[in-house]
């Protein structure tokens, strides 16, 4: 597996970034290689990468909690949190401190080991998935050839954690929540994957950086959404399936406050409870990011295009003596590209929140009907249609 922990972190060190070697490890080796053994360098690089991903997830979750409360407030003609800092921006931090200090309660009849393991498993899976998120074209935790497949595989592991939490709590509400989660995720994984096949087919790659770069034509507006007539319906299908995968309303059946108290996390409190929330928001962020990269152009926009033309794109260039050097001039491009992806991702998150406060929760049988009878066949039609379109295009051009 080609790993490259935060390629930016080793300014000036001659490393082969293009080949995908671990740049952070190389940087560490150059700095401390004489004093530390090889395994310590490995552990240091891995630890730094995990810490960075954890930090990213925490910040994203805290910001999203605040955003959700503000969006909910304004949709319902309220203000949302207002007292903690300017427009309540410190609210999430205050809540985090409260959650850390809360008593850690485990029900007497719960399966202790599994009850304690479940939130950790959920969080571990989403941290692993987050490693594939590219921060900018030249700045990433891990440049995986499998990219989006890795994200989907890892986020499917969170299901097991949720089912584990529900069963280990040993309460009827949680078990119902867990059963719904298992049924729902198995049903919606198929349309999710199949609708994602459409842009993957057009891009010819699963790598998120390469897929984004393939949309740079037409002044940065060559988004996959406009490149194939089957892409727009596939995008809608993907978005609906992603809502169901991330347990967001109107598909939040596993939680369903009105029926199941709080669903699978009824018995959780304090920091373990907040792990589930971090997972939910990180999963929303990841799904929106995948949608942005594979349908909405990723890093590419007219602004990115012109900044890239004006300042140059490559973060690492071949220097005079043949060594790879950090190209400081490319930093505006990298920053604009990263911000473009962030804006697109948060637009997706905002849409998810908007839908949550607009649509009522649908019934469990409606969820199943929609997944199996409508989304799956429609996704298959989209995939076959897009494949035929691409084949026809190739036949005409050759």
């Amino acid at each position, binding site marked *: 597996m080609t790993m490259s922990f935060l390629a930016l972190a080793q300014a000036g060190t001659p490393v082969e970034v293009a080949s995908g070697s671990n740049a952070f490890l190389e940087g560490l080796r150059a700095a401390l290689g004489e004093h530390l053994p090889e395994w310590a360098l490995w552990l240091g690089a891995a630890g730094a990468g995990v810490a960075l991903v954890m930090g990213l997830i925490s910040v994203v979750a805290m910001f999203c909690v605040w955003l959700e409360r503000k969006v909910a407030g304004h949709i319902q003609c309220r203000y949302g949190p207002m007292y903690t800092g300017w427009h309540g921006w410190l609210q999430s931090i205050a809540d985090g401190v409260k959650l850390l200090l809360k008593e850690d309660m485990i029900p007497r009849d719960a399966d202790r080991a599994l009850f304690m393991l479940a939130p950790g498993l959920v969080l571990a899976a989403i941290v692993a998935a987050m490693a594939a998120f590219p921060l900018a074209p030249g700045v990433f935790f891990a440049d995986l*050839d*499998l990219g989006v*497949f*890795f994200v989907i595989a890892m986020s499917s*592991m969170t*299901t*097991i954690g949720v*089912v584990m939490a529900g069963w280990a709590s040993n309460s009827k509400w949680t078990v119902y929540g867990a059963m719904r989660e298992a*049924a729902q995720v198995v049903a919606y994984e198929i349309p999710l994957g199949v609708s994602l096949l459409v842009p993957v087919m057009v891009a010819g790659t*699963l790598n998120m950086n390469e897929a984004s770069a393939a949309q740079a034509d037409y002044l940065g507006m060559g988004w996959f959404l406009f490149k194939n007539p089957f892409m727009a319906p596939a995008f809608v299908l993907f978005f609906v399936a992603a809502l169901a995968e991330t347990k967001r309303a109107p598909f939040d059946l596993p939680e369903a406050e009105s029926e199941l108290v709080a669903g699978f996390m009824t018995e959780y409190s304090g920091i373990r409870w907040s792990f589930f929330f971090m997972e939910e928001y990180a999963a929303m962020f990841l799904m929106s990011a995948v949608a942005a990269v594979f349908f909405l152009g990723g890093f590419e926009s007219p602004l990115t295009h012109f900044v890239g033309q004006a300042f140059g794109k490559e973060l690492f260039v071949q220097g005079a003596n043949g060594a790879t050097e950090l190209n400081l001039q490319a930093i505006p491009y990298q920053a604009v590209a990263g911000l473009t992806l962030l804006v697109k991702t948060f637009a997706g998150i905002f849409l998810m929140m908007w839908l949550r406060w607009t649509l009522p929760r649908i019934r469990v049988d409606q969820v199943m009907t929609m997944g199996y009878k409508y989304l799956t066949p429609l996704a298959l039609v989209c995939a076959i249609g897009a494949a035929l379109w691409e084949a026809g295009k190739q036949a005409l051009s050759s």
Partner: protein
Amino acid sequence: MEATDRLFYGLVGLASLAAIAACTWIGGGAGAAFGLFAVLVLAGSLTCIWERSVVRSAFCLIGTFGGTAGLFLMLGSDFLAMSQILIYVGGILALILFGVMLTPPDLTERKLPRVMAGLVAVGAGVAFVAAKVAATVHWVEAATLAEPQHETEQIGVAFLAYDQYMIAFELAAVVLTVALVAAVYVARRRKIDLEEEGAEG
């Protein structure tokens, strides 16, 4: 926790630590990784057999599947590893759990003869696999094999090329579809059943 449970988990834990230490001693960093994944597979399978509650057994399979994915990763097969996680942990295990979650645990006392029979079965299986591996694997060749390149593409091409696996691949899909339709047919509620229920209620 019973005394036998404690003994079992203690033994598994000690054996796991010893195995990882031995692998690290022999192979360094790569050996440690191999030891970790192999221990995950073996310990997951053993606890899966040992646990009295079906659901806990199913959860033990996370270790088995995850460890297998790790071994695939070590062989340079990223695609297989991720498929292993996506299909087995995310799909099949969720389905197994969905099926067994409402099964009550069998808390009757462990019957020692059965444990012995299980041990004999496990021993026989291990002996068979070991003999098979010893007979077929050429270790010297295996050590010099290069890591697969562009593996995802190769797998895709192999599944779609006429002269390779296309027919087997399509036939497998047909078999699975037939099985799915058959399962729905067996499980569906027929009109007669519904009428009988209506008459009773």
